[in-house]
């Protein structure tokens, strides 16, 4: 589902964020990505979502060779991926419902179908009663869960999360991680960047460790199956 072959990412200015990273995640697998700040976790996720392009090496995601994917096809590629950020990227000029509905509007669903799916997603994250609320009126845990609902509402094949529990207390963090485990159980390939080792080591999923742009603490070519 996700495959990296000797991937190098160098940002303008010469700093190498990732060097010679190879890994493979099968469809339906789940893994955590850990490492210090600046170890390259975010860069790795951005490469998968085509927010950044690799300097060298091959990346294949969801059956697409990202190196040769033309710009105009990027939106269609991203529709197969759900992305969750630490600061949840919600739009503050519209309601929770409209935030979650955005991917479905873009995909071209009709209003009744959108309402049905948005409510199902909000129900899943336990915020059905907040659909009319404005994001600023929610706690940060709730905002994060709205962000998760938006990432899964269009049933993507891949779920990426960058420090989704960064601002949350341990109990809320565990709740969020349980949610990801549930999504993975229904077959969504899930990759979560987190430095909360204490939490993720208890969840029984493979952990990839990045250090200074290199994959350490894993096989030379880790293969992660469901």
């Amino acid at each position, binding site marked *: 589902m996700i495959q990296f072959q000797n991937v190098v990412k160098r940002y303008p200015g010469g700093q190498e964020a990732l060097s010679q990273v190879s890994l493979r995640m099968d469809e339906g697998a789940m893994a955590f990505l850990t490492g210090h700040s600046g170890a390259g976790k975010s860069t790795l996720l951005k490469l998968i979502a085509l927010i950044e392009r690799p300097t060298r090496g091959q990346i294949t995601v*969801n059956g697409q060779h990202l190196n040769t994917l033309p710009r*105009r096809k990027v939106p269609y590629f991203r*529709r197969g991926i759900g*992305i969750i950020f630490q600061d949840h*990227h919600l739009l503050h000029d519209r309601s929770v419902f409209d935030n979650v509905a955005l*991917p479905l509007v873009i995909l*071209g*669903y009709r209003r009744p179908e959108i309402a049905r799916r948005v409510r199902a997603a909000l129900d899943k994250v336990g915020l059905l009663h907040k659909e009319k609320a404005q994001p600023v009126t929610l706690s940060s845990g709730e905002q994060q869960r709205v962000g998760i609902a938006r990432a899964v509402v269009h049933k993507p*094949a891949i779920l990426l999360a960058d420090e989704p529990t960064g601002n949350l207390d341990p109990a809320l963090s565990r709740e969020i991680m349980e949610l990801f485990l549930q999504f993975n159980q229904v077959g969504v390939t899930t990759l979560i960047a987190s430095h909360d080792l204490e939490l993720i080591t208890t969840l029984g999923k493979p952990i990839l460790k990045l250090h200074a742009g290199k994959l350490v603490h894993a096989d030379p070519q880790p293969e992660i199956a469901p």
Partner: protein
Amino acid sequence: MSRARGNAPPIHTRFQAWGVNHAQALVFSLGRLYRNPFGAALTLAVIAIALALPSGLWLALKNLQAASGDWDHGAQLSVFVADSVTDPALVQLAGRIQALEAVERAQPLTREDALAEFRALSGFGEALDLLDHNPLPALVLVTPVPAHQGPAEVQALARQLEALEGVTQAQVDMQWVQRLQALLEMTRRGVVLVAILLGLGVLLVVGNTIRLDILNRRREIEVAKLVGATDGFIRRPFLYGGLWLGLFGGLLALFIVGLALVLLNGPVQQLAALYGSDFRLQGPGFSGALGLLGTAVALGLGGSWIAVGRHLREIEPQ
């Protein structure tokens, strides 16, 4: 990958949704104008003034041309006759001229008639009394038929009349009409130039407004791109925003032009009455109004298209 494609709705639903999405973008961009009335009003006023100015000038020109067209019909030839021609011969000559195809009317004016008219109209009557003989020649006043009112035709007629026996000179009283026409032509060019410059101004104003709008909504664009919005989807509300600016700016410009017409029509009619004319100002008419609106919409769309093409690409999720 089957899942990735599996998350899209069926094709007919997507096609319908595409239409719905266009309609939504249209209404949404209108709502944005409504929610920011002060900024929108300022932009619309600038657009409307920039459009109303050349439209008003063009209308003024059109009216001047219509008015001077009336005067064209007054083109007359004064055919001066040699002193040797007697009064009965003059009447005969006038009859011959009257028979010409190009002539509508030929009115003979004997030397005594000419003197009387000069005395009555010039105010130099007493000076004439000092002269011991009548210095004025007899003449025939010739009015060409309407089909022969053009400058070239009238000149040709003058040469034809000069060839007649007893005629010393045929003078065309239309040099001032020609001068006016030349002046109008020059003004027309000027109006076209001003229109082009102000049209360019509208393009830039709309472009800049949409550019600021895009920058203000940067976050929204980033998020939409992250969840798979195509460039077309993101572009749409901005393009429609430009369309609304153009349309409403055009309507406002029409209103300004209309108001100016109403305010000017009274004095213009008074002036026309002083010249013994029932001339009244012409409005832009249906096609003129439609042309103005069409131009305004095209400029609005064009301006937003430039801004969108230039700035949407730069905004990518970080």
